[in-house]
């Protein structure tokens, strides 16, 4: 990861990119005796490999047209108009492809929920804070290219929007605690893509930072909860932990509030900055993004607090003997201390971008990534107000549903659709995985077998047949020999006579 972000040229970035994917594969498959873990690891790697391949193609094009992969050279070439539109578009598309794969955005997002098979600290680090955000980093880093291909940049924003909405609704029906958080991650990164897509690089990066804090916090506290339940991750079997794990509860709540973007927690400042940027961007795109973002906020409130209520509130639903859980009381210091640190961060870091008052983060980044759009302070505060309203509405609805003991999404076709994650997995399976296997088997049986087994056999048989024929001609009878001789001599003489 460090290599990735510190690289000064695209090749080294790609190396870091791939190595991060490798690490992810190894770590997801840590519990290698669990088939589901191995499958998840493979899926993650292969989807990332698709992204890598697309990026590599774009780099080949770059080498062919620009002659270098160095950042400055490439960026100058992109922004100076030396390259044709097609080339720049393809390059940006390639970069976007890689980013989408790594950051688990639609359409290459299906690996992230499965990646939760890995140990929770792994989820916290790479699938929340660092690796998955690499895509955002990439877009911001290579922003001159994207700015030279505005269509692609807008595509990034739209993909981000789609992801944040889809992930949000799917999270509403998940029962696994880590999956909810995973979809949440996907959704939040969608926000970052949205921001990067309209040129609010600073804010996108800022949201990246704050998200790192509160998402990691959520994962770690979720880990404490899972640990408390000896590995159980189904939230229907949890509940009422507020009293049992007070510290964990408090930190989890902080994380959740930050996620939902309630002031004064970190998420509020960063997410709303992005929303404000969308508002400031204006035009059809800007409004679609803004409204979508708001709906996303509502969804975030819904699923996040659904999670909170299920895990920490209500009566304990877990039925177990005393001996089964790891002793009563709060988690050990080793677990709670990191959570504390992250909780503090989730609270405080947001203050690095108080609109109109103090924006050191934005200013610090400005020399490198100049934003395309800067909302005014009014716009920021106004949109924040609206957003908080939406978020609160979400919280309220979640609370109502929980109190009534019903699900947010009723049984029926929609729930079905959501529970199957919009059938993406099945789609990919049918489109790619199965055909690939079928093709392999078909080639093996219908092409390879005949060629390998029988290719030479045909030649051999033919030769042996010819040989047998000749063997029969050799009759062993002298008169045959003499006849053959006489005939041959005659022909020879005849030919000589004719040709002379």
């Amino acid at each position: 990861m460090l290599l990735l972000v510190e690289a000064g040229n695209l090749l080294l970035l790609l190396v870091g990119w791939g190595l991060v994917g490798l690490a992810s594969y190894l770590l997801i498959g840590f519990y290698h005796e669990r088939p589901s873990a191995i499958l998840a690891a493979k899926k993650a790697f292969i989807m990332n490999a698709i992204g890598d391949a697309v990026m590599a193609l774009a780099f080949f094009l770059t080498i062919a047209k620009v002659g270098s992969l160095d950042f400055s050279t490439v960026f100058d070439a992109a922004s100076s108009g030396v390259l044709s539109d097609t080339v720049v578009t393809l390059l940006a598309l390639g970069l976007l492809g890689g980013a989408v794969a790594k950051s688990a955005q639609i359409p290459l997002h299906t690996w992230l929920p499965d990646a939760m098979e890995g140990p929770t600290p792994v989820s916290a680090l790479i699938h929340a804070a660092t690796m998955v955000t690499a895509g955002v980093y990439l877009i911001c880093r290579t922003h001159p290219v994207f700015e030279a291909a505005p269509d692609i940049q807008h595509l990034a924003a739209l993909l981000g929007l789609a992801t944040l909405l889809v992930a949000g609704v799917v999270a509403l029906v998940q029962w696994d605690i880590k999956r909810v958080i995973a979809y949440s991650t996907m959704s939040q990164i969608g926000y970052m893509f949205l921001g990067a897509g309209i040129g609010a690089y600073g804010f996108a990066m800022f949201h990246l930072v704050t998200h790192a804090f509160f998402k990691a916090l959520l994962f770690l506290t979720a880990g404490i909860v899972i640990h408390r339940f000896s590995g159980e991750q189904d939230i229907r079997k949890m509940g009422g932990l507020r009293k049992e794990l007070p510290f964990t509860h408090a930190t989890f709540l902080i994380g959740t509030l930050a996620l939902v973007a309630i002031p004064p927690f970190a998420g509020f400042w960063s997410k709303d900055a992005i929303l404000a940027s969308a508002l400031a961007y204006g035009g059809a795109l800007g409004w679609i993004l803004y409204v979508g973002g708001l709906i996303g906020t509502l969804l975030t409130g819904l699923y996040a607090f659904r999670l909170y209520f299920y895990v920490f509130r209500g009566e304990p639903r877990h039925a177990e003997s005393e001996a089964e859980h790891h002793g009563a009381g709060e988690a050990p210091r080793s677990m709670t201390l990191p959570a504390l640190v992250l909780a503090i961060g989730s609270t405080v870091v947001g203050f690095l971008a108080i609109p109109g008052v103090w924006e050191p983060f934005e200013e610090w980044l400005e020399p490198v990534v100049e934003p395309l759009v800067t909302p005014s302070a009014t716009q920021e505060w106004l949109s924040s107000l609206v957003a908080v309203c939406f978020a609160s509405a979400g919280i309220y609805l979640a609370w109502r549903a929980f109190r009534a003991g019903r699900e947010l999404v009723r049984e029926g076709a929609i729930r079905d659709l959501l529970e199957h994650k919009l059938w993406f997995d099945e789609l990919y399976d049918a489109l790619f995985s199965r055909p690939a296997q079928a093709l392999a088997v078909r080639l093996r049986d219908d092409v390879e077998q005949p060629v390998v087994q029988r290719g030479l056999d045909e030649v051999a048989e033919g030769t042996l047949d010819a040989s047998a024929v000749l063997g029969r001609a050799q009759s062993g009878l002298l008169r045959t020999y003499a006849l053959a001789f006489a005939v041959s001599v005659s022909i020879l003489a005849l030919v000589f006579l004719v040709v002379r």
Partner: protein
Amino acid sequence: MLTTLLIVVPLAAALLVWILPLSAESTAGLALLGALAEVGLWAGGARNFDFSSQEQQYSASREWFSDLGISYSVGLYGFQYWLVGLTVVVGAAAIGYAMWVGRDRPRAYYGLVLFLVGSLVGVFASQDLLLFYVFFEAMLIPIYVLVGVWGGPRRVKATLTFVLYTMFGSLLMLASIIAFGISQGTFELADLGTSSNDWIFLGFLVAFFVKAPLLPFHGWLRLSYTEATPEVAAILSGVVSKAAVFGLVWIVLPHFPGPVDDLRGLALVLAAATLVYGSVLAFRQPDIRGVIAYSSMAQMGLIMLGIFSVNDLGLDGAILHSVNHGLVSAGFFLVAGIIETRFGSGELARLGGLAKGRPALASVVLILGMFTLAVPGSTNFAGEFAILSGVFQRGWGYAAVGAAAIVLAAMYALRLISAILHDRRASATRESGDLVGGELALVLPLVAILAVLSAWPALVTERSFPLDQPTSFIAGQEQGP
């Protein structure tokens, strides 16, 4: 002088091994000694090798068949030196493996392996067209016997298929060599000019396409790689296939620029098809060796893409990837052999779950698997990236196919790794522990070299062609004297 030594030392060792009536252990020891001496020779020569010079290094030339203009002429340029290095290292590893596992009729066996190594070095060092052919053919004799006598149950069919396919190609090449050499009046590579005769070109092309192998001449691959002993398979896939690389880069490209241009599209298409075909087939092979065999085929397709791109990136990448692939596939075959010996079977359906309690084995399989799929940061990635960048400039379609192959490689490599290490099956035929020092000693040197190359691929790419300008170097050869 050094070149001749490099050729003669294994041959002399072979002769000694055949003649001296030593015990099995002593024979193996003598063979290993010969192989290591060879590696030492090469390493010593590497230090004194002037990579920046435009001249051949360590060349030697003697009149042999002056009536036809054939001479014993050997010499090494950078890329040849690396291929020779690959040969001697893989040869030593193979002999080490044989020693570890034990082979019956050791004198004949080690002699033949050493003879094979010697002929291979000769192939890469030849600077005379006919001498090249002599060594190219001489390789077949030991392979024929090694596979046919010490191989698996279908060994006779395997070796016959191999020899007949190869001879078909080589004899076409012989016709081409005769035509080319006689019409030019000499067989020395340095003195030969160019020809635009498509037929002569095709003779060479077919021979090398069979050797690599490329579609559709690959019928010998599966059986030979599966039925040979692991170390012979390692040499076959790791080194022998590179004879095709050498032949194309050093004989075909410089001397047939016109036909190369004309038929480049066809060659690239075949190479790309091989890459995809091999990768797809590797995905559903039922045994370790089958996966590596088809993976090998795919990698050779990739290397061919690099060669026929005929530009600096592609050629450098092709040489680097040749070395990489040689080491990786040799290592993998040896590991496959170790697994087969320890666990009684190489079939994936009967393996699985081997990672538990066997950290060394798991690490080795994983590392080799990662190299196979060219994880970024590995030398294989460097080679692949260079090749694909190069071939992109000949047509973006080929690079797109190559990129798709990256994904396919990930698929089959991960499947292989999981099938060996992870997915627990019902019946492992035999229980056995982790890798021990002897086995590690065979594989780790290969991995170590790969690691060094991963950190420093320029070691090979910048030192393959004089002044690091492959295309101008090859074009320069076209002029002749």
